[in-house]
């Protein structure tokens, strides 16, 4: 017997078992041995997608439109083919940012905007309420039908019974209590509920087994296999149409629309996001779910059409609601146990959906709607209260109760106007509004906060107008005229033929308009400005994926002393302490007191808080203790500062490379000078050897002549010998001078520095040359020499200079009329000596050259022999000597008017001695 108390007992027994499973899984999780950390459990928990819509509603849909129930499951199959791109990316981003809901995800993506999080929450709550109503309707109906066993009586219309006798109300209350027990026992920073996931996975198995059992019974128990069911159906003209083109969805457009809707719903419904993204243990589990979840959908749909056809055959005339066939067929054949199993399966489908959905929604309501508002009210003083974790839990509990209450309200208001599937599709169309901002946010960096707000608002408004309000109107809560003639009787404003767009079913119609407005506003408004700093940073995190994750958005620091109490207020001080301990250990520190007050600690605290109160609120709370100015002109300046620092570095680098270039140039120059010196040395050697060869050649020539011809007469012989002697003298002088020069240049010359009387040296030098002057009949005048001028110098070297200058002058003055005068004068600091002649003078361009080695002034060569008269080393040696004593030697000359060689010596030239 299936008395009412048996059913109630079974229901509570089943819920009790679920609770035990959840409790055990939580225990295991706390011990670090997670039950749910495997791909199979992940795939099964994704089965929360299959609610009573699937369990009861699909059969109803199939009875009405043949194969038309299927797009709702083909869509998710297609989505999971793309899971490797979309879902895994979302999971990575969510884990890196501690994102706990879809509202958090959107808010976080567009610069942690509280307004955006709130809007997403509002849309999600309103959009999902019809869906919750659907569950209440299914559970209360299945209970009522089963309770009337063995009769098969359709339950009374929801609005027809007083609220107090309405079983749906009690279902709602029980589900609320169960969910509160389940999901809000304690506050978890990660917002993960291992126990819940384990229970959901078990529920997925139960509902699949129940449905397959019913399917097997209907196909092989009542009929003779699938072929038999279809053969019988084909014989009934009404049913035969449902299996072919005419029975398929009215248009292929609607079919495609449903696939598209389901594709996004399976990702964006708050409960799907919760299970697939937030509760995910390991991102690698996704890859197996890619085929396991579609396989689950395939199996649970395997018998939908046969059951629908069998139901239509068994209950002709429409007296039994097709949504209940899966339950009423076993009942009609007195299969009590199977009927009870089916009922439990339906209960599984409903509880799974309600638990996950309301927990997800309550998190969103608490974190993105209520807390931001409360924290802004200074009257409440929340910002300074010590422990807010209790308050957070209370807000969540109340949210769960209120959401289920709203679900019940919608059920009372509009529940009877639609079949289960049609109610669910309203919700699908609502969450599809998240698609542009979520998918766009993952692939496009240009989206801005205003764009997301505008897109969501536009899409939501059109959804409300074209789908939600008509659902109220159909159940008589809004005037009939609204859907009969359009708003205010204006046909163009007709909610289901907006601007005259007709020929579409209401879902497709809503989707066309809302998506057009949503996408248009999102992209259009986003393009009004470039993303600001914070949006751009979040965009990089979301679009760039895991590589970019972990970048801290904080530019200030705060210590443990500030952050620990803050976290404690929301998480409870014990949990906060634990989390900080863990963080300290991860960073290799012994205690939390050692944690430095840096941006890493702030980011850790922010993500920790984000788990409890949502990313937008967390940012606001952390900002209150972090010594950081809000993102404004200051932060922009900071960023600019960084930029200018980088510029400074690069400037420095540039400078360095410039220096390097300069050094290179210097080196190159030094190198070329070395090469030049090398070349000069080669020149010098070749000149020296040339100068040595000239006297040697003549000595050899005359010696050979003397040696080979003994008959040379005496006069000739003595002339030759004379030449040989003078050439030898010249040669030895040359060699002496070269040695002398080499010694001077290498600094190895020996100097004996004494006080030297300049006039005395001049006279001595003149004396030694008297014979030569007399021979050439040149006058030498020493009248201008002052006596008593003394310098510190090497007497012999100074003598050498004087002799050089005098013999040099003698060489160039003409014989007979030549005149050489020598003068010496002194100032306090130096002595000046000059040797002046009346020779041909020296060309201006030669005046420097004559001090180079082996260079002689023009016109010094003997015209006949082309033999230079000097060695070309006298002046260079003289200059070396004078410079050694810190003096100067130069020549002043006007061509044709003689030359004047001058040298100076400092009075105190003894320093080098």
């Amino acid at each position, binding site marked *: 017997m299936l008395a009412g108390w048996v059913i109630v007992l079974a229901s509570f027994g089943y819920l009790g078992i679920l609770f035990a499973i959840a409790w055990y899984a939580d225990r295991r999780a706390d011990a670090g041995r997670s039950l749910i950390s495997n791909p199979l459990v992940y795939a099964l928990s994704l089965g929360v997608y299959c609610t009573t819509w699937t369990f009861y509603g699909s059969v109803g849909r199939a009875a009405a439109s043949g194969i038309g129930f299927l797009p709702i499951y083909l869509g998710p199959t297609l989505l999971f083919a793309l899971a490797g*791109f979309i879902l895994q990316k979302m999971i990575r981003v969510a884990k890196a940012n501690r994102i706990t809901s879809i509202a958090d995800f959107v808010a976080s993506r567009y610069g942690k905007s509280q307004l955006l999080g709130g809007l997403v929450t509002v849309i999600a709550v309103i959009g999902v309420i019809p869906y919750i109503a659907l569950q209440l309707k299914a559970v209360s109906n299945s209970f009522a039908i089963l309770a009337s066993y063995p009769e098969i009586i359709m339950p009374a219309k929801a609005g027809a019974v007083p609220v107090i006798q309405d079983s749906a109300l009690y279902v709602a209350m029980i589900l609320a209590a169960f969910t509160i027990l389940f999901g809000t026992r304690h506050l978890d920073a990660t917002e993960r509920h291992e126990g819940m996931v384990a229970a959901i996975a078990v529920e997925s198995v139960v509902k699949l087994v129940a449905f397959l059992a019913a399917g097997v019974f209907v196909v092989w128990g009542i009929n003779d296999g699938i072929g038999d069911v279809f053969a019988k159906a084909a014989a009934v003209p009404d049913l035969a149409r449902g299996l072919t083109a005419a029975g398929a969805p009215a248009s292929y457009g609607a079919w495609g629309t449903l696939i598209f809707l389901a594709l996004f719903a399976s990702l964006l419904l708050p409960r799907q996001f919760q299970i697939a993204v937030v509760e995910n243990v390991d991102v*690698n589990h996704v890859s197996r779910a*890619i085929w396991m979840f579609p396989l689950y959908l395939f199996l649970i749909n395997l018998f939908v059409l046969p059951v629908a056809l069998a139901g239509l055959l068994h209950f002709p005339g429409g007296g039994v609601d097709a949504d209940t066939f899966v339950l009423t067929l076993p009942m009609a054949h007195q299969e009590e146990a199977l009927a009870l199993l089916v009922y439990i399966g339906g209960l599984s489908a409903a509880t799974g959906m309600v638990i996950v959905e309301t927990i997800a929604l309550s998190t969103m309501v608490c974190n993105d709607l209520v807390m931001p508002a409360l924290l802004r009210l200074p009257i409440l003083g929340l910002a300074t209260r010590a422990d807010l974790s209790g308050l957070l839990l209370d807000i969540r509990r109340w949210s769960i109760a209120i959401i289920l209450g709203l679900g019940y309200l919608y059920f009372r208001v509009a529940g009877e106007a639609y079949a289960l599937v049609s109610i669910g599709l309203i919700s699908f169309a609502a969450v599809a509004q998240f698609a542009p901002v979520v998918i766009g946010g993952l692939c496009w960096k240009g989206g801005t906060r205003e764009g997301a707000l505008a897109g969501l608002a536009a899409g939501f408004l059109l959804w409300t107008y074209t789908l939600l309000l008509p659902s109220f109107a159909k159940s008589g809560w809004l005037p009939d005229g609204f859907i009969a003639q359009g708003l205010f009787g204006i046909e163009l404003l007709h909610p289901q033929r907006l601007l005259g767009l007709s020929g579409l079913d209401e879902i497709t119609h809503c989707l066309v308009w809302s998506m057009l407005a949503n996408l248009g506003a999102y992209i259009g408004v986003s393009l009004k400005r470039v993303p600001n700093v914070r949006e751009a940073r979040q965009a990089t995190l979301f679009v760039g994926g895991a590589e970019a994750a972990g970048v801290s958005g904080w530019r200030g620091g705060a210590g443990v002393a500030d952050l620990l109490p803050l976290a404690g207020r929301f998480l409870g001080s014990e949990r906060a302490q634990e989390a900080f301990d863990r963080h300290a250990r991860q960073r290799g520190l012994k205690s939390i007191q050692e944690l430095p007050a840096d941006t890493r600690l702030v980011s850790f605290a922010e993500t920790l808080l984000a788990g409890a109160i949502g990313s937008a609120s967390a940012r606001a709370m952390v900002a209150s203790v972090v010594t950081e100015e809000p993102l404004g002109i200051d932060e922009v300046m900071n960023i600019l500062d960084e930029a200018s620092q980088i510029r400074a570095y690069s400037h420095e680098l540039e400078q360095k490379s410039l220096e390097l270039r300069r050094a290179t140039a210097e080196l190159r120059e030094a190198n070329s000078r070395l090469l030049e010196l090398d070349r000069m040395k080669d020149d010098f050697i070749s000149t020296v050897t040339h100068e040595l060869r000239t006297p040697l050649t003549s000595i050899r020539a005359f010696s050979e002549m003397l040696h080979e011809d003994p008959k040379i007469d005496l006069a000739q012989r003595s002339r030759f010998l004379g030449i040989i002697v003078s050439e030898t003298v010249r040669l030895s002088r040359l060699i002496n001078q070269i040695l002398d020069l080499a010694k001077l240049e290498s600094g190895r010359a020996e100097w004996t520095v004494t006080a030297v009387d300049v006039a005395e040296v001049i006279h001595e030098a003149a004396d030694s040359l008297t014979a030569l002057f007399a021979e050439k009949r040149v006058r030498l005048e020493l009248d201008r020499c002052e006596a008593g001028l003394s310098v510190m110098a090497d007497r012999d070297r100074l003598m050498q200079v004087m002799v050089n200058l005098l013999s040099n002058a003698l060489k160039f003055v003409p014989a007979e009329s030549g005149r050489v005068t020598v003068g010496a004068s002194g100032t306090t600091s130096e002595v000046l000596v000059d040797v002046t002649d009346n020779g041909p003078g020296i060309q201006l361009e030669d005046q420097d050259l004559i001090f180079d080695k082996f260079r002689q002034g023009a016109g010094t060569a003997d015209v006949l022999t082309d033999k230079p008269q000097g060695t070309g080393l006298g002046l260079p040696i003289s200059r070396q000597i004078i410079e050694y004593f810190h003096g100067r030697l130069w020549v002043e000359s006007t061509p044709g008017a003689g030359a004047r060689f001058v040298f100076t010596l400092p009075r105190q030239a003894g320093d080098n001695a």
Partner: protein
Amino acid sequence: MIRSRLVAPRLAFLFLIGCILFNYPLLSVFSRSGDFFGLPPLYVWLMSSWAGLIALMAWVVERRGD
């Protein structure tokens, strides 16, 4: 577990195939009366192509060594 760099593109390719298999105009080819071993062609087509697609997805994800 997705090791091979080809897995994601292969799955994306299956996504495109699925979009074509499950939609107009291919759907209209099977959307007619008559039967296929006693079953409606549309039903057989959708269920078999769906199962085939899932099998291919499983094969792409689970195969090793490439």
